[in-house]
């Protein structure tokens, strides 16, 4: 550990998995998702990422950093994201 509170490594925030802070988590229903990306735009933690499921473009949340704020579920135009109890 350094003597001073300084980290001389780029991208070090990735190492701090802050996802454990949440009590509820977003769950995407792939069949409903239209891949519009509105959740990706609005996520304050920048933890929504694009992926494919059964050849279809959808969005999912990286639960290592998601704090469970629920904004993605709120803005989803087709209600494809539901907030569920995080049991971990």
């Amino acid at each position, binding site marked *: 550990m350094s003597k001073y509170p300084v*980290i001389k490594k*780029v991208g070090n925030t990735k190492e701090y998995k802050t996802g454990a802070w949440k009590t509820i988590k977003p769950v995407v229903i792939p069949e409903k998702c239209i891949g519009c990306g509105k959740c990706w735009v609005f996520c304050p933690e920048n933890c929504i990422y694009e992926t494919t499921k059964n050849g279809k473009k959808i969005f999912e949340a990286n639960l290592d950093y998601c704090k469970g704020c629920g904004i993605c579920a709120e803005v989803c135009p087709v209600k494809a994201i539901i907030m569920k109890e995080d049991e971990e």
Partner: protein
Amino acid sequence: MVGIKKVEYGKKQVLSTSDAIAYAVRFCEPKVTAVYPITPQTWIAEKITELINNGEMDSELILVESEHSSCSAILGAAATGVRTFSATSSQGLALMNEVLHVLSGMRLPSVFAIASRALSSPINIWADHSDMMNSRDTSWIQLFCESAQEAHDTIIQAYKISEKALLPVFVVVDGYTLSHVYEPVFIETKQKVKSFIGDYKPTHAYLNPKKPMTQGPIGYPSEYMDFKLEQQRAMNKALNVIKETNRKFKIKFGRSYGNGLIDERVRSKRVIIAMGSMCTTLRGLEKKYKKTKYEFSLIKIKSFRPFPKKELLRALSNATDIAVIDRAMSYGNAGPLFIEVSSALGEAGYRKRINNFIVGLGGREARIKDFEFIIKNIGRESYWINVNGGKNISFSAVI
């Protein structure tokens, strides 16, 4: 008040303490200065803005909307690895409080001049040490001055101390009773000051796109306490840094202030411990009462943080009666300096008669006859001095 007379460098002349501070800052050339006006510090800020405006001083001046902002601006500037300066008083220092902890926690050097003043309420603009005691635990070095010359010299020393110890420094002068007093001051030259303090080379915190870094990240329970231990280590090391800087300053400039931490000139069995401008009055009385029944010696605490426990205990080794004069009060207990001295004595297992005097809160006059009362009551009962219409009231009678 400002700019009446041309100041000559490398010469002794009559100047106010605020001007003496401003010229010392000018010689140290902080790259960033951020100030917000507050009485009685304003004079220092005025002089510095004047020097910058006249092109006599090269510094980025940030005029902010509060002291919280000025301290934050200094924090940001210091994090890029440059020399910085600010000044404030009283409520301003109290408003800075949360950012003060961040500066010292990030181990960033900086120098702030403080014209110390009472805290509200009732609102009061005059001298006492309440604002300093309120920021006692911020991990800032606190150096108390008693003359214009000492203030001028301590600013110069402070930059060297701060950059070596990697802790920020307060240079404290009593509001009005020192900040607005005209005295003969030897104003140094920029060349001499520069050769003494050198260029600031940041060690751990700076802005360099080729070497990116995160400053002030989160400290989990697994790390936080270890950084705090480092801070205490730095404070302990600062004791030697202050002493060494004072010694080197004497070689270069021919002036020094005790050993840099405490100033004791004679030793007697009866001792008065004090800080700030009232030390000059006490020194006069020390001479007057020499070889009389009431003979005493004065110990001036210059460095309140770090507290020079070892040096103080050595100075008190033969003392039997000790009086501690406080210009602040820790309500519900006693004066803060008294508490410090008592704890140092207790820890070392010394048994001495010690008492406390609360003097001059909010600019209440500290008259010669008040000091004479103190001198005659060293080691007896503790008192509030010159209260309720000129009376001295013992601690036990405050009910």
